[in-house]
């Protein structure tokens, strides 16, 4: 994407995310607190974040790819299960990814 295109996406994202926040403080609660709205909002993050994990770890363009990213992800999952701090999780994932790169 062009530099101007990236700026447009960043600025539009900033405006949109801000307006979503402002709406919550401003609109009557009854508009937002419909059961299906809260239901969807409670589960959207799980669906989207898991999709992003999968796409970031195991795809490249339109292909499925197995490489050091997936090894890093597995290491991160173990570290998270052991309740390691965030920064430790990222460092371990990065070290695993770098190791696979060096070995491969």
């Amino acid at each position, binding site marked *: 994407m062009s530099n101007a295109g990236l700026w447009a996406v960043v600025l539009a994202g900033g405006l949109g995310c801000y307006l979503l*926040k402002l709406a*919550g403080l401003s609109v009557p609660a009854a508009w937002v607190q419909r059961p299906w709205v809260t239901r969807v909002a409670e589960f959207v993050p*799980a669906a989207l974040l*898991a999709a992003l994990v999968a*796409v970031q770890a195991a795809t490249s*363009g339109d292909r499925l790819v197995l490489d050091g990213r997936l090894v*890093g992800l597995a290491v991160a999952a173990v570290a998270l299960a052991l309740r390691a701090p*965030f920064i430790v999780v*990222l460092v371990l994932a990065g070290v695993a990814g770098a190791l*696979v790169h060096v070995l491969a």
Partner: protein
Amino acid sequence: MSAARSATLRDAIGLGVAVGLYGVAFGAAAATAGLSPLQALASSLLMFTGASQFALVGVLGAGGGAAAALGSALLLGTRNTLYGVRLAPLLGDRGRWRRVGTAHWVIDETTALAVSAPDPAHARLAFLAGGATIFTLWNATTLAGALGAAALGPTAKAALDAVVPAAFLALLWPRLRGAFPEVGRQRLVALGGAVIALALTPVVPPGVQVIAAVAAVALAGRPPREVTS
């Protein structure tokens, strides 16, 4: 300063420092996706909601177009609308202009701080102290991460490529953990989202599979009866 007041400040600033560290990961992810350090910083200053920012650069980094990147960022941003509804009575901003300023800091962490405070006065303090700490550190660490990533060699780039999915997993993890409400269904929806995204990757334009994964929300089904508040 009262004990409750200093405890509130300590919690708010402690959480702010911890969250600020995520900014390094975001800055690095933004640089990997092709954003300049200034664009990474602008995202943190203007969007200021971590999951949406990660989604935006994640989709762009995967080769996705503007619509897919914005769509996933805004879908994740709808969380903050619900937070605002909960925060409005606690923050008690009667004036329109106060709300316009307060709104920018309505995110996961400030909401958690405010709703767990003992009363509205402390809720407001926790919101403002947490918001100020997180906003300052998040932007400073974003810039540091973006500048740092720009100077990396190939092995360090491979390390960074592995850090980005791990950062998404760390954002997702609390929702999959035992204490989270309806954790079984959260796990099912997460699994569904990942499967949809991978299955669609070969057949749709980059980024679209992430938006399509929202369909997995249907796996959540109806709310259990006791959660009708």
